[in-house]
């Protein structure tokens, strides 16, 4: 049985992680299929006065907001944003971090030190403030900028983890054996290092997604991320903020969605981490 299959068996055994995984899958599907699933146009304001702030009903499963937009539709489209930004930023961050980690792990000590001290600086940066600053100064920031900013400020931890792994692998006997055989550079990395790094990278990415989604929502809440009228869970919460007593569903829906999503990603990531733990492979 290959390492992958064994990991799958281990993962399958943890019901919580499997449940979380299913939730993640459903969320992803919902996000992708938003145009098909959404009952209404998230930006449409059919009747600004009459349909305003309606509680959940048959026509509007999650009610309407102050601009009489269907909350459910906005939620689904908002999912696109959140998960899209989450996935893209996590992927970018992790690739960046892994790249630096591998470079530092394989490079001569001087280069390694240089890279790692930069990582130290990066870890010390006040991430949120930095992003806020840039977004505040940049007029009409496109979503891609948000993704890039989040990624650029979030790869540091991954690089340390990857570097530690690479250093350890370098000393392992099977790598020594490969070097003794004459395997060099790129072949060595591809054949012997990457299969071991992949699990760490995947886990790192998955656990990051939760944080990134929260970060993006925060930014949107503050008005600096995704700008209205495009829905994002963050700005939906901002919209519904002062109506918590009169029309709680407007803010509650995205709020709950956030909760469920972040928890699901975290539990899924934890489950993955346990399942892919190389120490179990003996």
């Amino acid at each position, binding site marked *: 049985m290959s390492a992958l299959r064994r990991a799958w068996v281990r993962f399958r055994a943890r019901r919580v992680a499997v449940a979380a995984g299913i939730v993640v899958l459903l969320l992803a599907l919902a996000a992708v299929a938003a145009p098909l699933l959404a009952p209404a146009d998230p930006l449409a304001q059919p009747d600004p006065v009459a349909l305003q702030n309606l509680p959940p009903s048959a026509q509007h499963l999650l009610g309407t907001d102050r601009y009489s937009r269907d909350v459910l539709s906005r939620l689904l489209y908002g999912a696109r944003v959140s998960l899209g930004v989450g996935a893209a930023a996590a992927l970018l961050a992790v690739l960046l971090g892994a790249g630096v980690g591998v470079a530092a792990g394989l490079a001569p000590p001087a280069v390694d030190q240089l890279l790692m001290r930069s990582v130290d600086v990066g870890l010390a940066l006040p991430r949120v403030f930095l992003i806020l600053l840039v977004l505040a100064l940049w007029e009409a920031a496109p979503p891609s900028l948000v993704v890039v900013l989040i990624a650029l400020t979030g790869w540091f931890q991954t690089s340390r983890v990857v570097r530690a792994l690479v250093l350890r692998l370098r000393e392992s006997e099977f790598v020594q054996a490969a070097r*003794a*055989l004459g395997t060099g550079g790129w*072949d060595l990395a591809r054949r012997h290092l990457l299969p071991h790094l992949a699990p760490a990278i995947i886990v790192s990415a998955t656990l990051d997604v939760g944080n990134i989604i929260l970060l993006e929502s925060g930014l949107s809440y503050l008005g600096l991320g995704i700008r209205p009228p495009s829905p994002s869970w963050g700005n939906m919460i901002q919209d519904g903020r002062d109506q918590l007593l009169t029309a709680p569903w407007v803010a509650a829906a995205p709020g709950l969605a956030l909760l469920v999503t972040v928890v699901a990603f975290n539990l899924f990531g934890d489950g993955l981490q346990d399942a892919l733990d190389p120490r179990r492979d*003996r």
Partner: protein
Amino acid sequence: MTPPDGTPVRPYDRTPVRPLLQVQDLVVHFTRHSGLLGSRRETVQAVNGVSLAVGRRETLGLVGESGCGKTTLARAVLLLVEKTSGTVWFDGQDLHALPPAELRRMRRRLQIVFQDPYTSLNPRMTVGAAIREGLIVHRLAEGAAARRRVRELMEEVGLAPGEADKYPHEFSGGQRQRVGIARALAVEPELLVCDEPVSALDVSVQAQVLNLLADLQARHGLSYLFISHDLAVVRHVAPRVAVMYLGRIVEEGPAGELYERPKHPYTQALLSAVPVPDPVTKRPRIVLAGDPPSPVDPPPGCPFHPRCQHPAKDETCRTVRPELLDRGPEQRVACHKA
């Protein structure tokens, strides 16, 4: 610097024969950072001036306890670890002076078998892929031909060829060792450095692997540098043995002589400490005092002097480092009092 061409391997050997592997004054020191913030720097003197030679079709046994540097020596000979000074010649060529492409080709000729059957194989590669790696790297075979060769090698080392697609964890320790041997054999080496190849195995499996190594040597004309802490195993395997202590060779000679009439006090203590499966014979036991010193801070003079029980131990032992000198036919000892 050219190797001592035609220098006899053994002083009394009339025929000048260039050994396959020759190591001259090899020194390997590491710096280690310890303490808070890595502020303290220590130099680990792992190998402190070792010279040895292994001829064609010959086996040289290297014994020593933990910390003596034998594993570092093994890796340094294969250029897996950087040397601090000294030279390693293989078939007359200075390995460190070779350009990278040449070195790569040369690597085929000297291979290594590791101690731990669990960590010496990549857990995410099938054993077939592991054995095949050498063939691919050196373009010895590809595709179907490579797979066929892998099956042949597996049979040769006593594994079922049909299991090539299994992963290391599906095999026992002894079988994994065989995979490691097959992997090394794939590139048709002339010298095999065996770093404690049977230490992690049970007695009955150990015997199987040792027999396999003997067969392979006969069949392929291999030379072995056989490293172990187990004196009984080395006695069985090597006609010539060198004893290492704290980065240096302290005694070297034919196995029979060395085991029956050891000259260096450390060799004597080492041999007296080995438990022999014989409840009847009484043997004198030399019990050493204290723990072996660390290679970070080797004592001045003779490295063994703090634990040495020789009655004539004196100031010379404490201050002057003994050289490895001839003390008999094919025997060398590094001791002022031997």
